[in-house]
């Protein structure tokens, strides 16, 4: 009993600190909405056109993106499980690329490509195509769908790969009509993955700031996230409006999160089997699938990439596409150690490393605590909840709540205005991914290794470093890489919480879009994407090597 208590006390302290940091700011936000102004005024504010419009736009964008990603992913998941293309794993990785480039960069790429006198018009001056229709809510839905489909694709591909085709075969043998197979067998099985995917896409779209802030502003499409940022950082200020919009956004996101959590609790349909999916080998199916994927990749990667690279090479932006107008000077400027862009690069990667480490440590602790049998059930649940809650909090809302928390309630700490608040925000934001990776790793951890190690090895440090850490290494590296990428491209938190005199990559690119040298910003964007890829593929290669060594 005493042994058990010795675990419980530190765990409770840990949970309390986490609650203070994660739930505290949200409580501050809610209370400042509810008690900051009179109820009548609150009701009045709730019905102002600005709030209603951005709420409507947010929901439109969310639902539109759900439809968009579904339309993209459904055929894609089928192609990548049921045709000959499924055997190419490089294609699988290529399809995930759009998720790795920051969405605001993609959005800028689309603008520069399709605007009047944009890249398309310069390459095809005689083209009669008009892209007016693209500069509409449809365009922004398309951009969001093309950015978010990789998530949806991963979910759906796994579901399809595990789909036991014997069920449909059994139905066929019993002469069930195709329609009934679809409605009675296929759809019910796929419903849960689809629902999970929709909730995920909806939450991500709702929380998205970069695309509405760039492309959306171009077409005057304000959503909740941009309204919050505008209320907090543009003249005339409207703090209360921003706080209210933040509360609305948080409530919707929390609802979606609750739905998601209940979905996860659904008893899983046992789909494991040793049968491989039947591959359709008709050549015309393969051809059609290849064409579809090419079109998708061109739209999702090709257009933004070409457009951004092109912008980053321009000497004069009005002169357009001529060989004499191309220059590498913007890239050379990045290499100068005193250039602000280089500073931004250093700042960002330095911060990303600190944040990813802190994230890894806290995330691992939460995972250990929520899987170990030594803690009472309620405490484990509580910690697990804390670890997954930030998934529901949109970045801009977290930044806003931390702003209120540290500038009003905890002003005495003098932390507001320093980089600490930004660090806390980023660590909290990316905690759920780490917790998820590590929890899965711990659950899959085979206790036999430990038991046999304990028999043959007395030094526990050797057990940790020779057995536990190597086994957990893939999960550790993956979660580090994920939070590193996410931190280095995070935009809105940086815009709201960066201390004076500091820029990060994302704030630099955004400012160069808004105020400075667009070409310089685009050059930095290209560099960032390249660095991200290089570090990802390096860590992957290293992991592969480790795996081969261990076998």
């Amino acid at each position, binding site marked *: 009993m005493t042994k058990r208590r010795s675990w419980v006390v*530190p765990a409770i302290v840990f949970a309390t600190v986490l609650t203070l940091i994660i739930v505290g700011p949200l409580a501050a936000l809610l209370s400042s909405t509810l008690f900051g102004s009179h109820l009548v005024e609150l009701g009045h504010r709730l019905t102002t056109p*600005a709030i209603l419009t951005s709420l409507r736009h947010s929901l439109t964008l969310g639902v539109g993106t759900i439809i968009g990603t579904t339309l993209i992913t459904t055929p894609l998941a089928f192609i990548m499980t049921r045709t000959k293309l499924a055997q190419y794993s490089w294609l699988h990785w290529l399809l995930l690329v759009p998720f790795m480039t920051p969405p605001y960069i993609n959005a800028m790429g689309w603008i520069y490509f399709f605007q009047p*006198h944009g890249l398309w018009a310069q390459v095809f001056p005689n083209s009669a195509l008009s892209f007016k229709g693209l500069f509409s809510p449809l365009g922004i839905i398309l951009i969001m769908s093309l950015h978010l489909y990789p998530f949806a694709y991963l979910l759906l591909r796994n579901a399809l790969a595990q789909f036991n085709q014997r069920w449909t075969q059994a139905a066929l043998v019993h002469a069930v009509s195709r329609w009934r197979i679809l409605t009675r067998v296929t759809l019910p099985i796929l419903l849960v993955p689809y629902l999970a995917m929709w909730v995920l896409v909806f939450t991500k779209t709702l929380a998205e700031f970069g695309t509405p802030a760039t492309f959306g502003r171009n077409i005057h499409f304000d959503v909740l996230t941009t309204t919050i940022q505008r209320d907090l950082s*543009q*003249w005339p200020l409207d703090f209360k409006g921003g706080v209210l919009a933040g509360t609305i956004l948080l409530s919707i996101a929390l609802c979606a999160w609750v739905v998601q959590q209940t979905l996860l609790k659904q008893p899983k349909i046992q789909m494991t089997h040793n049968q491989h999916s039947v591959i359709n080998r008709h050549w015309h199916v393969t051809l059609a699938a290849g064409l579809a994927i090419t079109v998708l990749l061109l739209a999702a990667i090709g257009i933004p990439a070409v457009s951004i690279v092109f912008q980053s090479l321009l000497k004069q932006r009005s002169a357009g596409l001529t060989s004499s107008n191309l220059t590498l000077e913007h890239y050379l400027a990045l290499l100068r150690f005193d250039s602000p862009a280089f500073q931004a690069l250093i700042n960002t990667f330095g911060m990303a490393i600190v944040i990813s480490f802190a994230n890894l440590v806290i995330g691992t602790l939460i995972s250990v605590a929520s899987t170990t049998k030594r803690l009472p059930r309620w405490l484990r649940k509580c910690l697990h909840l804390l670890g997954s809650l930030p998934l529901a909090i949109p970045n801009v809302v977290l930044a806003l709540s931390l702003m209120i928390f540290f500038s009003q309630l905890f002003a005495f700490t003098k932390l507001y205005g320093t980089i600490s608040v930004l660090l806390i925000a980023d660590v909290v934001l990316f905690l759920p991914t780490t917790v998820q990776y590590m929890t899965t790793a711990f659950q899959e951890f085979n206790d036999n290794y430990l038991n046999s190690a304990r028999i043959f090895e007395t030094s*526990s440090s050797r057990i940790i470093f020779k057995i*536990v850490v190597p086994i957990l290494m893939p999960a550790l590296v993956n979660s580090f890489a994920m939070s590193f990428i996410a931190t280095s491209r995070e935009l809105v938190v940086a815009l709201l919480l960066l201390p004076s005199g500091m820029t990060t990559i994302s704030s630099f690119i955004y400012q160069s879009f808004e105020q400075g040298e*667009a070409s310089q910003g685009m050059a930095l964007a290209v560099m960032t994407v390249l660095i991200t890829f290089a570090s990802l593929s390096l860590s992957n290669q290293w992991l592969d090597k480790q795996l081969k060594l261990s076998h």
Partner: protein
Amino acid sequence: MKNKKIVLTISAIAILSLGGAIYAANHHGKAATNDKTSTQSLTVYAAGPKKLSDKIVKGFEKDSGIKVKTFDGTTGKILSKLKAEESNPQADVLILASMAAGVDLQSHKKLLTYDAKNSTKLNTQFKDNQHQLFNYSASAVGITYNTQEVKTPPTDWSDLTDERYKNGLTIPDPKTSGSSLDFVNVYQMQHGQSYFKQLKQNGAEIGGANKEVLDAVVTGQKKAVVGGVDYMSIAAIKKGEKIGFAYPKSGTLVNPRPAMILKSTKHATAAKKFIDYLLSDTVQKQIKQSYLIPGTTDKLTNPLNDQVIKSYTVNWHDANQALEANIKKFNQVLGHD
């Protein structure tokens, strides 16, 4: 039992590094605040050309040995940062692009009075009798147009209501651009709103910040900017971009860019030195090189051809009073929400 030891070790390491991280973060914060209490550091929030403010700050650091931390942003962003930090002020000196915003801070008694050495040298139009706003430079607004799209250059505001500019006009958003805020306000004080209604009928739209609307004209997305700032366009013209800039002949707003010391400052001596430096010949020359109008100039001239700019005479205290109503009207006429 060993199992427990392992988990214990992992958590011990984890807690140690967590503590280390928190300590480092706190320590970092403390180091920063310690810096601030010494007289040898200054925090400046500056709106406006980043290159110029970087140059000024570097020169000042070299000259005085005082370390300067800067935050660059639009006028709106600076004001919001100020508001967020109300209970824990960070800034010592502000440089804004909007005179109305400066006067607003002045009327709320947020500013320190200082009889700056060189303030007598300032152009009479830029002097502040209360010695709180130091208009070390100024910028004018006008019409930026794409020379490939517009064959006959516009000469006055009224030219833009012509059919040729249909759906090709953009106005910098007063919510982000301080100079646009003042222009929209002062223009309505002088001439009422009918002009903006005509612009709306001609398909004019509110764009983003100054650079964004300029970029739209440079890339040919739009034909002309109504009320774009001069120095930005002129810098682009000097770079060879195919655009032109016109100072309207019926008159335009020459907007002083005020620097000011906040009353809450803990480094008044350093801040005063900074203001003196802003009004020094070195900086005034740098301002001219950035195509802004130096505060100590005797005539307001067009940097492209040295012709005198016809400027509105503005009572900034009246302008501050009229601001909110005029911006609201402007947004009703041209806004989207």
